[in-house]
Every structure is written in C-alpha cells, then in structure tokens.
C-alpha cells in the first residue's frame, strides 16, 4: 500500500512538472522556432556544404551586395555603392560605421582580406564556383575596394550577393575556420548566442545592425534552429506549437497538416529541377540511346504531367528545356514531346526496337515514388528500366565514369537564376557532360564568359533548342518546396531556397 501511494505521488509529480513546462514557441516570447532535417556541420560559410548551413550563415554574415528576389535587382549591402570600372573590374564604396558582432568596425582591410583569402588554393573553399573567378581584391582607401576578375564574368554580381560574405580580419586570423565554425562573428542581422554543435543554434537580433541594410532590421527577436532528423517528430512538434516553421514537406503530409487550424501550408516554386540525363555514347555508342529516335521515344513515354500532379507538389511545372524557366537565358521555345505512348512505340519500332529494350536507370536524391512512376511509364512502351538507387556521391561518381546510360536526379543551380549554372553545367564539356555535342559546347562556352546579355540569350537559346531537338535530356519538372508554418507567422520562401528568416514577422 505504502509503495502504491509513493508511486502515485511520483506519477503526480511527473504530471505537475509537465504542466509547468514553459510555453516553447511562437509569438508569445517573440521566438521563431525552426527545424531542419539535415545536420549543419559548421557556420563558416566558405566550408559548409549544406543549404541549411548556408541559410544560417546568411543570418550571421553580410556580403557586399544583395539580390532583391522580387525584382532581380542587385542592391548594395555592405557596399554603399558599386560601379563597373571596366569589364573585369568592379569598384565598391563601403558603408561607413558597419559593426561586427564583436564590436569592431568593418573596413576595407576586412573586405580585401576576406576576398583574397578565400580565393587561394590552400584555403580550399567548399564551392569554388563562388570564388574561382576572382583575381584579387585591392584596397583603394579605407572605404574603397576594387575587385579584379580573371576574365569578364557574367555571374559576378550573383556571386557577390550572398555567396561571398565578409569576415572580420582580426578575429578570423585568430579563430580560423574551426573557431568561426562554432563562434561565428559577422555583420549580419542576427548573431549566434548559443550552439550545440550540429544540433541546435540560437540566434538573437543584432542590436548594432546598420539601419539601411537591404535585409532590414529583423522583426523577430530570437530564432532557434534545431536539427530534427525524423520528419514525423517535426510534424508532432509543429502540431503542438513547439515549432513555427518546417520545410520540404511531402505532398501527402502537407495535406494532413493543412487540416490543422493552427497551421498554414504553402508551396513555393524554386530554382531546382529534376531531369533524366541520357548518355548517347553509353557502352561505346552501342546502346539504344545512341539513336535520337529512341531518346525522343523515352520523352514521349513518360507522363510527366500526371506524375507531377501525384507526387511532386502544387507549384511545380513540367519543363521541356535543360534549365529552369525562372532562370535568365532559359528558352522555352524548344521541341516539345508530349505524353504519347503510341508515338513512343512507333519511334522505337522505327529505330529497330519494336519490343523495347532493357536498361539501368541510375537514381540519386529523388523520392522513390516519382522514379517508380517513371519506370512504370517506360515499361508500358516496352522499355524495361531497372532503378538503381545510390547515395548521391556514389551515383555521381558512377555517372562521371560512364557506368550508366540514364541518370535521374535534380539540380539546384546554387540557387542562382542564370542558366550559366544549369545548361552549361551539363552540356559545356564538363565531366558531367556525357553528350559533348560539338554544336552545343562552343555556344555555351562563349555565353558563359560574355557580359553581353543579348549574345548570351541568343547562344543559350540555340544550345537549348539543339539539346531538345536531339533529346539529350529528359527534362522532368521544376521543384516546389512545401513549407508548413504557424498561422501567426508571416513568412515565405524565395525561389533560390535560401530561407531569409530576417524577413519573417508575426501577423
């Protein structure tokens, strides 16, 4: 009896403790609670590989420029103004009095130091594409810096807007990437106040933030970011109000969450798109893929519209070119192959495959249901595709080594709205390019280094027309990201997949 009553008392006290649990999320304590599924390993922007980590980095650090996602306009951020001196030189006048989180003032020395450091080979920046075009940065005076490029680079402004944050020279020399990774110091709208490596990050609005930043002064005081690898745990916490925002919610879960009265579900189109790479030279050109009619038949065979509707997400669009229509230089005036299994069969028969053929379909980073639907569609016209699912790194190596003829995957173009980072990535003779079309390569190479926008547009359009005509690709659909959030939260995702929490506010 005594034991029983003790147990009851213990149980009661547990319930009491639970009742005393503080309200965790939301508007009440002006804290935005966010969850990501993937671990963030470092907050040093130049060493972090994941999108999630780079999103956090942009809360902490500012760059010289800022891109307005609505107008596409480049605005000065840490720079007060900028101008092109010539094709290869940009001059920045720096904003005076900008403070780092450690209280020091940003000067031309910090800018020159950062840009010259991250471009060195020894520094080994994770994404070379952001830094490799820079020759050097030169200090003109305390508030003026010139940036010299190796060659005219049409994406210079894109890279300067977000991908090249400025670090404090004195601190970074002392702390290095290891110190910066856990105790970051930047000029950004939020500063890091607490960190459990890889799992939990607490940010607080930086009171010394410069007033006329295009990022603006954040409306929400605190942002708490946690890594919750299990999506169902994310849904549970969102439902009970312990989280205010999650993303990459699959369509079926989105439907369930949207029924909750305290939640809002949004779908936003993003730069990422899905595709199937076809290698005409696979198996020394002896595979059926060598024949353009076969490749066209494959495109006709896949019912992209239906698969998109069922498995991809509301805001997505089926695409016909090797790029995302949101990007500069993405022409939609290309050959289109609608869903037509009869036509596909006819083309296969003409090419000498009346009974179809068997082939491996390498897959990485796709929801399995989508790929299975594609496989089922192909089977209807007699093409027996076997899905070979591999981790991204393994699949990419295998593709580059020419071990597969078809590779289904997706590409985010670094969130940059320019086909120089999509079409060119796959068709300008890179190791990812298994076509190496002599007509396409020179067009892309010329456009990639030109700053003449009309020439670029023309060349890209020609290249994309040729790619579609030859059906070197089976373009699938653009991605959309579904977010689920607290109904009181006023926040939307931009197409470049960089969630900008400094723009979030309570309704």
């Amino acid at each position, binding site marked *: 009896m005594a034991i029983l009553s003790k147990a009851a008392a213990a149980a009661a006290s*547990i*319930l009491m*403790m*639970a*009742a005393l*649990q503080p309200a965790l999320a939301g508007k009440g304590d002006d804290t935005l609670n966010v969850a990501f599924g993937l*671990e963030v*390993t*470092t907050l*040093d922007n130049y*060493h972090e*590989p*994941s999108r999630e980590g780079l999103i956090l980095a942009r809360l902490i650090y500012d760059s010289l420029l800022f891109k307005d996602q609505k107008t596409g306009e480049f605005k000065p951020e840490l720079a007060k103004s900028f101008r092109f001196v010539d094709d290869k030189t940009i001059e920045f006048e720096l904003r005076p009095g900008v403070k780092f989180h450690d209280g020091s003032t940003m000067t031309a020395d910090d800018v020159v130091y950062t840009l010259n450091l991250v471009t060195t080979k020894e520094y*080994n920046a*994770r*994404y*070379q*594409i952001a830094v490799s075009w820079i020759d050097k940065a030169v200090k003109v005076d305390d508030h003026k810096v010139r940036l010299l490029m190796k060659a005219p680079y049409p994406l210079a402004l894109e890279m300067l807007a977000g991908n090249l944050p400025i670090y404090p020279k004195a601190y970074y020399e002392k702390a290095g*990437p*290891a110190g910066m*990774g*856990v105790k970051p110091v930047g000029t950004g709208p939020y500063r890091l106040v607490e960190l*459990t*490596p*890889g*799992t*939990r990050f607490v940010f607080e609005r930086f009171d010394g933030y410069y007033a006329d930043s295009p990022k603006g002064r954040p409306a929400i005081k605190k942002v708490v970011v*946690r*890594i*919750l*690898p*299990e999506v*169902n*745990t994310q849904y*549970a*916490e969102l*439902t*009970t109000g*312990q989280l205010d925002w999650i993303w990459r919610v699959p369509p079926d879960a989105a439907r369930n969450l949207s029924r909750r009265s305290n939640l809002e579900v949004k779908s936003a189109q993003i730069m990422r798109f899905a595709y199937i790479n076809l290698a005409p030279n696979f198996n020394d050109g002896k595979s059926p893929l060598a024949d353009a009619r076969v490749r066209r038949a494959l495109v006709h065979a896949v019912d992209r519209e239906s698969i998109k509707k069922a498995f991809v997400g509301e805001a997505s669009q089926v695409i016909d070119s090797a790029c995302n229509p949101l990007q500069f230089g993405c022409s939609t005036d290309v050959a289109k192959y609608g869903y037509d299994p009869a036509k596909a069969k006819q083309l296969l028969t003409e090419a000498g495959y009346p009974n179809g053929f068997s082939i491996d379909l390498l897959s990485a*980073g796709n929801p399995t249901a989508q790929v299975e639907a594609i496989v089922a569609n192909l089977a209807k016209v007699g093409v027996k595709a076997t899905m070979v699912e*591999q*981790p*991204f*790194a*393994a*699949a*990419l*190596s295998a593709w*580059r080594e020419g071990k597969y003829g078809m590779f289904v995957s997706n*590409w*985010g173009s*670094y969130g940059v709205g320019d086909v120089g980072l999509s079409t060119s*990535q796959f068709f300008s003779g*890179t*190791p*990812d390019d298994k076509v190496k079309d002599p007509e396409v390569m020179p067009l892309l190479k010329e456009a990639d280094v030109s700053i003449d926008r009309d020439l670029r547009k023309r060349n890209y359009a020609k290249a994309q027309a040729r790619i579609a005509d030859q059906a070197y690709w089976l373009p699938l659909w653009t991605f959309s990201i579904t977010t689920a959030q607290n109904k009181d939260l006023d926040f939307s995702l931009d197409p470049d997949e960089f969630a900008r929490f400094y723009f979030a506010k309570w309704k």
Partner: protein
Amino acid sequence: MLRYAVRRLASALLLALFVSFLSYILIFAAGDPAVALAGEAGTAADAERMRAAYGLNQPIWVQYGRWLWSVLHGNFGRSLYFDQPVSTILFGRFGVTMTLGVCSIVFALLLSLPLGIIAARWQGSAVDHLVRTIAVVGQAMPTFWFALLLVILLSVTFPILPTSGSETWRHFVMPTIVLGYFAMPALMRLTRSGMIQVLESDYIRTSRAMGIPGRRILFRYALRNAVIPVVSLSAAQFGYMLAGSVVVETVFALHGAGLLASESIRRSDLPTVQALVLCFSMIYVVLTLAADLVNAWLDPRMRS
C-alpha cells in the same frame, strides 16, 4: 585471472583494428569520399580538389596506414565536415548515447527480471501467458513505430513530455521506454527459462525438503544461478544499445553517437566513421570482458 584479462584485451584490440580496416574499405566501396566532400552541387573539379587536399588520391592502404599511425599516437584526426577534432565531437555525442544506454538497460532489467521470475514461478498460468505476450509484442514491434506511437500519445494528445532534444531527464523518458522495451524480451525469456531450469534442479528440491522458505529459495539460491547467462546477454544488449540506437536517436533527435555514425557514413566523413567504429568495437570488447568478470564473481567455479 589478470593474465587472462590482458590476453583477451590484446586479441580484442587486434579484432577492433581489423574491423576498422574493413570499415575503411567499405566507405570507399559505398561511394567516392571526394565526391561526397565536394557537396551535392560540387563539380568534378571540386571533387578532384578535395581528393588532393585530403590525400584521398593515395592508395587505400597508405591512407589507412597514415590513419592508424596517428591513432596509435592518440590522435583521431579532424572531421572532414565539422572542422573540429574528432575526439571533441565524439566526447559530446557519447555522453548522450551513454545516458540513453544506461537508462534503457536499467529499465529493461527492472522490467525483465521480475517478469521473468514471476513467469517462471507460476509457469503455464495466466500471468505467464500475459508476460510472454508482453515480450512477443516488444520483440515484434518496430522501434520507430513504437516511438511514434508514444510521441502521439505523450506529446501530441497529452502533451506531457518533450519530443526532441537531450537537455533534461524528461527528454530521456520516451527514448528509454522505447529502447528498453526493445531489449526486454530477450532478457525476460532468458531469466524465465533459466529460472524454470534451476527450479527443477535437485538442489532446489533438497532445499525445499529441508523446509527453507520459498522466497529465500527463489531469490537466494535459484536466481543467483539462473541469472548468469542474463548477465552476458545484458552486456551484449547494452553494447547493442550504444551502437544501434540510431533509430531511437533519429526519432527523438537525440544527437548521440548512433545518429552521428549514420550521418557520417552518408557524408563519407572518414575520420569520424573510423573513430566511431573503433569506439563501438572497443565498447563491445570491454562489455563482454566485464560480463565475464561479473559471472566469475557470481559463480565461484568460473574463478579458477
């Protein structure tokens, strides 16, 4: 006894090294670490650069030899992702995993020993059937599913426990129940069958005939012998909980060693994976050794 322990430790160490070499090769078989390092958006040139920067272009045995050399000097190297020494990362992660492991094995033993004894004492009765049903359910139920059921019950419907994190003891309640319940059936069945066997033995019959009270026979004479195999199994189960708690760690976002291992394998973070494999295998070795020592203490015949 001491010589035996030392010899066992030495051979176990060799085994651990062999395992670590195997895992080194497997990481390469699972995909090119350089490509993983270059990131999802990394170009072939990025991968090439990573290969050179981290010496991944050398033959595997050279790389492994270099790793082994630094480990023998007490240096586990730096994570390729965290920009921190592997030892620092592991220290924090093992704290979480150890807490969860200890809580779970204690919970499992607290559940399985009494249940096993009761089931054996009243073998074939309704209580026995009930206990065995509980065990079968625990064995058959996938841990992630049970974990999610608990989350729905104790966090969503009746919000009394937190779903994720490892800040307070309350964060460990649900993970402990899930992991402990999973380890319970095997321990319970072994206790039960051990007890049944012992209770039928001659010396117990003799003790009964001598009029020693039932409770004393059960706990003092029977349990002590019945529990010997349970000790060995608990050690193995505990090792499994430390190394194999990845599902529970994932659901409850306990960032422990199991979750770190699975994430590191995905990222091909060689130094981290290697250190984890070595730690996990050493834990098994130490635990089996400890179990043998406890058994020797329980059973004087094993001491000689």
